[in-house]
């Protein structure tokens, strides 16, 4: 038994001695581009909340919003991304992004049922601002295509999360839960809005 423990200890020590440097935050080339693009929508709470709210609202509105949304949103957001990459400025981007969390969260909380065209218009305008922020913040060293792949996939998956959570609204209790989630997103958006306007720092 003692010999076995000694063998294990020797083995572990040998492994530790042979350990190499870990490159955990490599931000260059394809891996760097994929990682930074994928993490960008997840690292900003305002972006993340708004993306999930889009999915939740789509699920509440039902067809055709629930399936047109994941198809059109990435495209509209990419248009905003191109504007950001090209350095074309948009007015008050951070304020509008915070406003998007407030409005979309409020829509989910109040189960707002707008005509589909208006709902698409609201979501489309916000999508351009979100895309602009992602495009403008591309790390210079990262592979541009990989950044685009990571960013689009992360955004799509966030919508999918929102839609999956939104399916809870089929039951009365689930519906209340979704509304509460919408209210939380609206409060978060309100905080970011006040923060960006300099009212609350």
């Amino acid at each position, binding site marked *: 038994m003692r010999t*076995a423990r000694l063998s294990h200890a020797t083995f572990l020590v040998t492994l530790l001695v042979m350990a190499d440097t870990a490159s955990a935050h490599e931000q260059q080339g394809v891996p760097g581009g994929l990682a930074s693009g994928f993490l960008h929508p997840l690292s900003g709470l305002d972006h993340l909340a708004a993306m999930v709210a889009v999915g939740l609202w789509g699920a509440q509105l039902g067809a055709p919003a629930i399936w047109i949304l994941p*198809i059109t949103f*990435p495209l509209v957001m990419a*248009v905003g*991304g191109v504007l950001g990459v*090209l350095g074309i400025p948009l007015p008050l981007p951070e304020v509008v992004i915070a406003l998007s969390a407030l409005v979309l969260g409020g829509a989910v909380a109040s189960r707002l049922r707008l005509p589909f065209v208006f709902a698409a218009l609201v979501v489309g305008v916000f999508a351009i601002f979100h895309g602009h922020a992602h495009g403008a913040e591309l790390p210079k060293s990262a*592979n541009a295509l990989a950044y*685009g*792949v990571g960013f689009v996939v992360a955004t799509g998956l966030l919508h999918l999360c929102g839609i999956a959570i939104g399916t809870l609204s089929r039951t009365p209790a689930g519906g209340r839960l979704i509304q509460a989630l919408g209210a939380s997103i609206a409060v978060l958006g309100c905080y970011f809005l006040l923060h960006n306007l300099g009212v609350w720092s």
Partner: protein
Amino acid sequence: MRRLLHRGAFAAASLLLVAQCAEAHIVSSRLGDFYAGALHPLTDLQDGVLWTALGLLAGSLGAIHGRWLVLVAPVGLFLGFTVGLSSGSAWIGPLSTSGMMVLLGLLLALGMRVNVAVLCAIALALCLMLGVVNAAGIGDGTDTVLFGVGVALSGYVFITLVTALTFTFRKLDGQPTGTWRAIALRACGSWIAAIGLMMGGFALAS
């Protein structure tokens, strides 16, 4: 018995520690240039995204469309490769490839019924373009025929597999439109078009 097992485990772990890289397919051996050609497109995301887009589109359109790609894709890639060897690849910029990404993505996202001739024309143009781009990766002293055949076969396998998987995925629901499988494919098209738009923006910015 237990002691023997411990010793065996220790010996196995020690052997693993001193393990070296396996060299089963040495690139400098007889068929090394073929493997270099086959792996070259897989070292970049651009070829992978475009081949996936083409496979998804063909698979979503049906078996007849997919069958034509089996012929058109490898021939286009090899022809493009030979053109690239003689003319260089500088004339194919990132805007051309991103434009192709947007086109394929939009066709898929909009669920358009493209006829066989149009799909073959798009596939041929895409494969010619990617063949030319891959010709730029050839090194000095490389056997050009083996490298070109490697590129063409790699594309053939990749596109055919994606087409077949998409066709099977699409066929499982037995409904032509409106099911979650069709929507998932269209969402993939939208993602691909969005990636193409972003890539075009990056190309314009740089």
